[in-house]
């Protein structure tokens, strides 16, 4: 595992893996959404709006997955000081925030015809909104660490670890509080969803996950390239100082 923390080795792998993850992810997601749009029957209770779940559910999982990635990478950065761990954490923030926002908006769109309201302040919705604000805070902190030139991302890493407390709260919110939001339909090894909905949902989840991974790789490559360019320009400027 330590071998992959070498930036040069990472770049060798990421160069071919990034476009593959993105292209396969886009094709698979597009096919899954077309399947969900055209070939899935309407649900007995939700009607046609059941199709929204093929966007909403993967987005919710990846929103939580993004912060889990930040927390694990931050832990590795703080404990083992892997050079790539902090970069991976920073790279996961944008796709995590985007998927959390997509989850909130599509959930709201689903709620209007199904629940009769765009929004309720229940445990699941509120904790997802808190997650979005946590992402904004993390992005602001890690950007500030990069801009001040110190490269000190410890504060952002600690914030990433502390913010992880929200992930089990989101997961258990439908159990702990009375909520409009239904309990989990899919748990470890168990599913209450009919196969007609489960397969396109699985395909969409794999597709969106590949896109998520491809975006993280692209962002890691961008951060690495910027860091290397800045270091070179600094060295050049220092060598040109007279005396």
């Amino acid at each position, binding site marked *: 595992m330590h071998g992959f923390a070498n930036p040069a080795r990472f770049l060798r792998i990421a160069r071919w893996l*990034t476009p593959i993850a*993105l292209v396969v992810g*886009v094709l698979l*997601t597009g096919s899954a*959404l077309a399947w969900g*749009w055209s070939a899935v029957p309407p649900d007995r209770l939700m*009607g*046609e*709006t059941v*199709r*929204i779940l093929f*966007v*909403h559910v993967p*987005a919710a999982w990846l929103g939580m997955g993004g912060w889990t990635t930040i927390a694990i990478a931050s832990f590795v950065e703080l404990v083992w000081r892997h050079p790539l761990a902090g970069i991976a954490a920073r790279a996961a923030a*944008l*796709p995590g925030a*985007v998927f959390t*926002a*997509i989850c909130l*908006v*599509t959930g709201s*769109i*689903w709620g*209007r*015809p199904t629940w*009769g309201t765009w929004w309720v302040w229940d445990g699941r919705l509120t904790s997802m909104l808190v997650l979005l604000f946590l992402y904004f805070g993390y992005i602001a902190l890690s950007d500030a660490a990069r801009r001040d030139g110190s490269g000190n991302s410890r504060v952002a890493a600690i914030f990433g670890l502390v913010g992880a407390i929200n992930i089990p709260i989101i997961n258990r919110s439908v159990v702990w509080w009375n909520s409009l939001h239904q309990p989990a339909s899919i748990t470890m090894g168990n599913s209450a969803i009919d196969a007609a909905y489960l397969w396109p949902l699985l395909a969409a989840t794999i597709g*969106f996950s590949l*896109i998520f991974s*491809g*975006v993280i790789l*692209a*962002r890691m*490559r*961008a*951060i690495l*390239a*910027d860091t*290397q*360019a800045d270091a*070179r*320009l600094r060295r*050049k400027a220092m060598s040109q100082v007279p005396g």
Partner: protein
Amino acid sequence: MREALDQWAFVAAAYAIGIAGTLIMISWSWLSMRRAEKRRDRSREQ
């Protein structure tokens, strides 16, 4: 009693937001990666 809403309009709106958000994120990440790697290559040549 269910409200008389066109459910397909809600499905279309959710798909549009999901697809547009994802495609914008992919394009922005890809372009900023290419820009950063070009900048690094230029700094090597200078």
